[in-house]
């Protein structure tokens, strides 16, 4: 008997979308529960007492938190349409880059919560990470995972759906096509992948959401 799958998520969290994409790519039936992060449900607090955060995947009543941990669990439980390579070394490299993408997240978000000189410094740092991704992680490959998308693509997927909104709202361009042609091409390719393209957040809605958030962070400081 199939054990039921539930996802506690929140729009427009990219972490939530990572799991939505994996569920989609592996063709897994699930029930989605949208959490109001300003008023967290008892269920969320019970399922993730340590962090009290989404996403949480619940499989047969057993909760798993932390998106990367969730993705690895999904890979092992539902091996169809694999997100990780078979070869142990290639698998380790995929994990290495997934961790890199995860760890560098705050550097990109820094442009969103800063202005002026601080923001320029943050942008410089972010571009250094983009250079590493462009040249060392992606290189000549179609996707970070090779010919097909994999774990690293999913972890970096926020760059495809969110980065240009963050850039617009922050008034700063990071992923310029001329400077990062491979990443730029990857973004377009990623958005077209079946399983991903049906699960991308609405751009207009995101603009409204992130504009409001930026205003909250910046207050009355004019950029």
């Amino acid at each position, binding site marked *: 008997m199939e054990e039921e799958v539930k996802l506690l998520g929140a729009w427009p969290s990219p972490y939530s979308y990572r799991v939505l994409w994996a569920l989609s790519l592996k063709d897994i039936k699930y029930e989605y529960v949208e959490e109001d992060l300003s008023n967290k449900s008892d269920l969320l607090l019970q399922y993730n007492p*340590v962090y009290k955060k989404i996403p949480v995947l619940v*499989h047969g009543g*057993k909760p*798993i*938190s*932390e998106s*990367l*941990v*969730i993705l*690895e*669990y999904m890979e*092992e*439980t539902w091996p169809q349409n694999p997100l990780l390579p078979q070869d*142990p*070394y290639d*698998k*380790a*490299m995929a*994990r*290495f880059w997934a*961790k*890199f993408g995860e760890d560098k997240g705050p550097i990109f978000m820094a442009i969103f919560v800063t202005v002026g000189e601080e923001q320029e410094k943050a942008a410089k740092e972010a571009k250094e990470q983009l250079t*590493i991704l462009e040249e*060392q992680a992606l290189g000549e490959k179609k996707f970070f995972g090779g010919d097909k998308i994999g774990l690293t693509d999913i972890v970096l997927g926020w760059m495809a759906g969110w980065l240009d909104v963050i850039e617009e709202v922050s008034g700063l361009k990071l992923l310029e096509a001329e400077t990062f042609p491979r990443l730029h091409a990857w973004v377009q390719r990623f958005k077209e992948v079946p399983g991903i393209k049906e699960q991308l957040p609405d751009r207009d809605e995101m603009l409204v959401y992130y504009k409001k958030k930026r205003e909250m962070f910046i207050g009355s400081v004019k950029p």
Partner: protein
Amino acid sequence: MEMGVQLLGYWASPFALRIKWALKLKEIHYENVEEHLPDKSPMLLQYNPVHKKIPVLVHKGKPLAESLVIIEYIDEVWKHNPLLPQDPYQRAKVRFWAKFADEKCVPTMFKAFSKVGAEQEQAAKELRENLKTLESALEGKHFFGGETIGFLDIAVGWIGCWARMNEEVAGVNMIDVEMMPLLSAWFQKFLELPIIKECLPPQDKLLVHTKEFHKMLMAALT
């Protein structure tokens, strides 16, 4: 005998130590290449161009960085004496807790060691709370891995050794025996295991090293 395994490490690094424990538990013969930090060898820069850090495992000429990624690789290539549990849900749990220790316990431990006054007290309080949370992962077992040690034991066990040093040098309470009796007991048991103990850096040398590092950090505060 396994050919072609090298570990680029540093004697005082807990992250290199994790790898040494993993290699030891799997009975893998390897060549230890000691980096003389803060100087970084051309080999290190070539093998880990992204982070330029140890540990780096080199197997059949191919380098890998990030200690937990390395341990999972070791577990997959050498299947005897498994480090991670077999069951996917149990694997998810140990990965979750290893991540928690690295992301929550380690930074607060560093802060409690490198700050003074109210900031230090606050960081130490947070660290103790984080360690208390980590204790719940033991679930009343002998070790995190059950009857025998596993992935999570070797991922977090070093904290017991370094915390003791840090407590002595920085004068702050980290592993509160009353607050976390089970974790305390586990640290002691784990670090006494012969296979674990023999890989630990010489304690007197580590104490000197810790004192010097602390002096540097205190000077940077003024």
